[in-house]
């Protein structure tokens, strides 16, 4: 009984002690720190090949969901050179819907030689989707120390899947 009490008391003491350390009473210790802000659009990226998606679809929601979902396959990127923290941008435009969607990818060393550049999903309502097919444009662009530039662009058919 004595031993269990001692164990519990010491754990409480450790928790309270660490908590006290975190405050302004002990200014030299910082326990909770903000994530380091990184310099974006730094370094350099050179793309060797780009595999654009063949087809983008707008699919009726599965499991009985009311909306239509945009489903754009990722763009496969092969790098010739990657340093620092450049940005790659995936952009889809559907002019007939007056619709544009972009997703930014902040690259770093962990990206490797090839990278799957994805476009975040989005939804449309029943009223918005009137046709079975739309024409769109997929654009991949980069932002690094050398500036902003288009890497590749392609016209694409967007089919609606009921």
């Amino acid at each position, binding site marked *: 009984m004595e031993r269990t009490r001692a164990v519990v008391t010491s754990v409480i003491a450790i*928790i309270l002690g660490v908590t006290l350390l975190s405050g302004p*009473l002990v200014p030299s210790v910082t326990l909770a720190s903000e994530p380091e802000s990184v310099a974006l659009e730094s370094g350099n990226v050179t793309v060797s090949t780009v595999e654009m998606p063949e087809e983008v679809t707008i699919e009726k929601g599965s499991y009985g969901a009311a909306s239509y979902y945009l489903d754009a396959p990722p763009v496969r990127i092969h790098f010739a050179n990657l340093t620092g923290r450049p940005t790659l941008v995936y952009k889809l435009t559907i002019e007939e819907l007056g619709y544009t969607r972009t997703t930014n990818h902040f690259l770093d060393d962990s990206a490797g030689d090839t990278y799957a550049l994805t476009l975040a*999903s989005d939804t449309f309502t029943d009223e918005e989707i009137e046709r079975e097919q739309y024409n769109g444009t997929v654009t991949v662009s980069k932002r690094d120390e050398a500036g902003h530039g288009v890497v590749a662009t392609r016209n694409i058919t967007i089919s609606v899947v009921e």
Partner: protein
Amino acid sequence: MTAAEFVGRLRQRTPALSNTRETTYAVLFGDRLGLTVFLATVVLFGLLWRTAFLINDSYTLANGLYSLSNGQLAMTEAAYGPGLETPGANRYGGQWYARNYGVIALSLPAVFVLDLLTAVVELRIALVALWSLALLALVVQCSHYTDGDWVLYGGTVAVLGLFGLNVALAQPLDAGRTHLYALQLTHLLIAAFTPVVLYRLLSRMHTRRLGLLSAVVLTAGTPLAFWATVPKRHAVTGAVVVCIAYCLYRSREPADGSVITERQTFRALTYALVGLYAWVHAPEALLLCVALALVDIPTALDNSPRTLARIGIVFALSLLPFILTNIAISGSPVKPPRLISRGGSLGGNTASGAGSSGGGSGASGLLTPLAPLLGTVESGVRPLLLLGGELVSGFKTLQQQPDDVYHAFVRSGSAGSALDNTGEESVNLSLLESAPILVAMVGALPVVRRLRLPSSMADRTLSGGRVVDVFAITAFVGVILLYNTRLPLHAQVTARYLFPLYPLGVYLLVRLPAVHKSLANHWYAFLWTVAGTVLIGGQVTVMFVALTVNGIGEAFQLHALLAVGIAVPLGIWALCGRSEGRAGQVGAVLLGAATGVAAVFLLLTSVEYYALGDAHLLPMMRALGELLALY
């Protein structure tokens, strides 16, 4: 009372009074198991706590608390959100006012404590430490139920490990938003008492084991944990209905407590709870008051004028904070900052009602002596008429719009057209999809069929259990009718307007003989199924979501289909109404699976679907949310 009697009574009470700790313990938690339920619930709610605004309405409460903590009843400055004109805020005399002043006032001490902590320590570490201490207390309580000290030693090591992990991953918490955290903390603590009181109620009616299992069903099988840290009335309503049920039960049973020694006190307490709840949300309090009076008065043992007068006085006293706040804001004692949610017919009627009461005060010159009395009667009757109208139109909706009722209660799915916010995804689940366990309530049908009315109706005093059953059914039906006209509606997530139905439903289904016999006889199978569904089923669900789902609407509908899928066999079992042998085992497994399916939805919603910018209070949950990217 003679002097000797007085001394005798005092002597009887001395042991209780001398040990304040024991008394507080007994009053709040009942027994050790009640405390364990409380701690487990607090730890769970802490895991799912996100320090962000889930819903715009909470801005109103946070700004109201901000102003009140600066000594102002009116909202002076939009410290949170886009401005003062947020949903639920109301304008009187050129100034904006919040609502739910009851919880705002209750949150004031929490603001004080959090501000104090901010001055001395880093708030994130302080709250992580509080959560770790709650977990440690849970470990200590659990170790009392096991032989040997391995639970204690293993548990303390785990607590230290988790505390270290959280501190290692910690990022500072914005110390300027203490009003939000204070509101969340208050709601969390109130919500944590819902399963505790349900445990106490059912352990008195049946056994402690059944009480504990019901607490598990309520906490894991309904969206209680989702709403616990959301500054809205829902978690409070749920706690209040369970507390009313508990006090109502105690008012019919011989008093055996250490503090309250008379049944009448519990009876008065039920009304006092309703009166205090009016300070949070008056229309629901009115509904609960009507339901309570309809059930309590006809079935009470003693309705002498003296007893009723005593109850009336206690009720009037409990209404004082509500009335004083109303007078300070609108000048009228019964006109709260917002009588009922926008869009309802009651809301429209209230506005016109305010106009006519203005005219009434002009006529008061003629009937000066009677005017205050007439005014009180008139203003007391009008809300009742409004409530009656709302209930009737809720009943009509049942007949006229069966599609809407189906979407609100059974299957939400493509109810997009019914929502007034176009473009919103299918994230508003029906009642059944949110808590599939509730389907077990159809088990009432075979019970009713077998029910034989007593040969004589002369004995109108029901037993405690029966009174609470009737109250729960009345409140259940009342809540459905009150909100029926407005559902399905956007921004409900888990049919939140119907929130009181979750604790009431769990109570009612556990009271069914087939359910409580299956649970009590096969509790092992039930608990293992809950654990298995959460741990294994949860992983399978995560894989399904990652592979097949493109967005939150599809994810919600996947969970909805899983819920309906388990509700069908559970409903069939409940309709059979058997609990002997194999049937009981099947029932326990189905009840466990329904609880587990809802728990998986709750966990994934808090960690992934509504991560609110990975704003989890606990750094380890934030890290988990960042790791999981399912669509």
